[in-house]
């Protein structure tokens, strides 16, 4: 297993570098662009003295590298800073919000996968037929629909015209509370899932198509298996492997979707936190959320690699 440990060490170092770069990118982006947080926090009534005082307190009057060094130093002690707007430690905020966003993404991803896999399979099997065109067309139309437009249509349809689901997500403090009010989760989860289905089914379709041209399929046919059995026993498994890796890769995209969906449905997750922080130039929160998402992405891609190895014996045995 030395190979595996070595791999982990290498990936871990890479992850550190990537996270470091993430923090640099966001930090520089935030601090270089015009309009610091002082005005946002203090408003038009903030006096020049107060602005100066604020900037001094937050260290915004120092040079950028100095500020970054200070930030990094605090970060290493686990201090993500304090939200200006919410008057809470960023760490606390993240601790509350992250599970909620994960709940949303996990539910909608699961839903999306459940729909996309059979959908992609059908498209691939019926390739070139009318039903493939119809489903492919539908998938692209879904893909082409901005999430906020989709959410809007959902709200109009299912909360206004046919008021079956609430238009607002549950506002519970804990996951348990959220789940108790599950009907409120329906629209956000479905809206978000819809955005992903298109992508996944498209991917599934081409993965299945790729596998269908593989020679082992011909071998399987030569053994006398029915096409259905070949699909299930041979093709599906091989096509699901890249899909699994896709999940890891699409984590940032999922978070992007979560951001829009959360702010549409007032879902108290990280996306909403980020959204509000951006409106109010709440730098510590912006940095904190981005870093957490960065960590999630990096960990996600690491897990993906491991998952890939678990699923694909070609990689597993080398380890």
């Amino acid at each position, binding site marked *: 297993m030395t190979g595996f440990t070595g791999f982990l060490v290498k990936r871990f170092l890479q992850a550190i570098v990537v996270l470091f770069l993430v923090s640099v990118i966001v930090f520089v982006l935030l601090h270089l662009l*015009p*309009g*610091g*947080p*002082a*005005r*946002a*926090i*203090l*408003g*038009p*009534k*903030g*006096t*020049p*003295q*107060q602005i100066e*005082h*604020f900037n001094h307190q937050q260290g915004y009057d120092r040079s950028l590298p100095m500020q970054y060094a200070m930030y990094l130093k605090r970060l290493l002690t686990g201090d993500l800073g*304090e939200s*200006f*707007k*919410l*008057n*809470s430690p960023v760490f*606390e*905020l993240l601790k*509350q919000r992250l599970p909620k966003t994960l709940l949303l993404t996990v539910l909608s991803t699961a839903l999306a996968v459940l729909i996309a896999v059979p959908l992609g399979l059908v498209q691939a099997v019926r390739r070139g037929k009318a039903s493939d065109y119809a489903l492919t067309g539908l998938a692209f139309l879904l893909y082409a629909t901005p999430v906020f437009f989709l959410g809007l249509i959902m*709200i109009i349809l299912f*909360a*206004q015209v046919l*008021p079956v689901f*609430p*238009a*607002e997500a549950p*506002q519970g*403090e804990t996951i348990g509370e959220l789940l108790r009010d599950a009907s409120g989760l329906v629209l956000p989860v479905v809206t978000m899932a819809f955005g992903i289905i298109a992508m996944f089914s498209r991917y599934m379709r081409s993965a299945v198509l790729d596998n269908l041209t593989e020679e082992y399929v011909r071998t399987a046919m030569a053994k006398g298996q029915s096409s259905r059995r070949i699909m299930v026993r041979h093709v599906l498994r091989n096509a699901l492997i890249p899909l699994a890796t896709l999940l890891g890769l699409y984590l940032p995209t999922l978070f992007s979707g979560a951001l829009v969906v959360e*702010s*549409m*449905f*007032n879902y*108290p997750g990280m996306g*909403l936190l980020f*959204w*509000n922080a951006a*409106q*109010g*130039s709440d730098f510590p929160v912006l940095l904190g959320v981005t870093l957490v998402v960065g960590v999630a992405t990096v960990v996600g891609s690491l897990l993906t690699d491991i998952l890939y190895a678990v699923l694909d014996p070609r990689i597993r045995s080398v380890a």
Partner: protein
Amino acid sequence: TREGGRVDMGPTGGTPVEGGTATMALPPASTPNWIFPIGAPGYGGSYNYGIQSLLFLPVYSPVQDRSKGGLTTHDTSTLGLEPKYSDGNKTVTVPLREGVKWSDGKPVTARDLEFWFHLVKANKADWGNYSVGTMPDNVKRFETVDDHTVRLHLTRAYNPDWFTANQLTLLRALPQHAWGAKTDGGEIGDWDRTPAGAKAVFARLTQHAKSLGSYGSDPLWKTVNGPWKLAGWRDSGQVTLVPNEKFTGPKAERPHLDKVVFKPFTTADSEYNVLRSGGVDYGYIPPSVMAQKEKFEEKGYRVDPWEGWAATYIVYNFNSTHAGPLMRQLYIRRAMQHLVDQKAMSDVIWQGSATPTLGPVPITPKSQYLSKAMERNRYPFDVAKAKRLLAGHGWRTDDGTARCVRPGTGDDQCGAGIERDDPLELTLLSQSGSTETTNMMQELKSSLSKAGIQLTVRQQPLNSVLGNSVPCKAKEPGCDWDMSFFGTAGSWYYPLNPSGEQLFSTGASANFGNYSDKKADRIIRGVQYSPDMKSVHEYGEYLADQLPVMWMPNPAYQVSVIRNDLRGIGQNPTITFAPQYWYYVKKKGAEK
């Protein structure tokens, strides 16, 4: 909450009942986040003050004068009684209502006020309401006359109205007997009487105030004297209040409801959706939905724009490198003001939820600060008049853009600093993110162009607009902006007295456009210092005429939507809440 959101009740009639819960929606970006009545800079939001004053009785506060209408500074809901000015208005005596007790049974005394004064004086920089020269700088000496009287010796004579309305309203009585320790668990004492001690006490309190998550459980905030006490304060900013059973105020000030919930929302849209489903009892709708007013009325709600005590305007930069000379011409400002169709903007773009701004003093609600002359629109929408004004001063419009053809300083000439062929081209920084504002600016651009004034609108996020439109000197790098707008939610909310010393006096901190007019400075000083009530009228009329800024429609603080059976709601234009007056009614004869 309640079934389906439909309320079977008209806006009047019914029998009042005790009890019930009311949920009030707070606007986007108004997350209650500060409980300590000394607001740190950035935590001075009106929603914070609104909630604080339910827990800690204000000494003076802009309260609605329920008999006369309009606003006053004290009534049964305030701690302070009529203040008395003496010594040529250089001393003010503040008597406190007697018999008021903290929830732990201790009386509210002058010492509590002194405690506040010491904390504020020693920690000016960390107090959001501080600006140089005013409270507490203008108090030479704080004197405790007796247990229920304090006396402030001022550095100079002040206009009593102005001082009470804009300075005494900052006073707070804080439970010194409960808060006066330097450290957690430390001895409570008179530490605040030394600056160092006051710093330490303040630091500790601030420290507690910085942990929003523990507000609900922190014993510090349990000592209150208001009609309400805290039942919960979520991280999301949702605040739940229940009646303070130890409240010692008069009967009229005691809550009828069992509970009020202040619920912040992140977007107006999400609030709207919840409102439609009946999830809030007292909410608001985006201005755009005003057109759908009837829908809500059918559902049993009343729609009531909450007018703010504010002025809304576009700042002219008189020092603008490019357009300063243009801005400095009154006739140009007049022409431009004639081109602002405030009426159409209010009616169409704001769907009737905004009212034209005619000068620095708000027209609605009526107040003692308003004179008859101020209610007249001096600059109604009139393209022809605007064109005449320009033509009369030597501007010609050939290719769509007005150009100066008669430079010079004469009466019929363009004015100082304007060269021949200079075009009337201006840029406007406007805040982004609001359809109404975007549309207003577009409408403005369109109508200005009718008189040959070319406006380039650059939209920026609010913070950038504020950050970019700072006072500056001509030709300096930061002074290349001509006009600036940040008034989607009103440009400036006044304290009770709408004096403009922070806005329009030379060099003032919020005088972003570098407006400087000797007469205006003098008049503003008069509002602050002279005892004459007339001075505020003079100020209002002069600046309405002089156009230090371009007046724009003043949007309502919010377009409130209130359940028909929730009554007793007075929408204070200075944006305070008084849920203790709220009560539910039920239909006559209908049983619970």
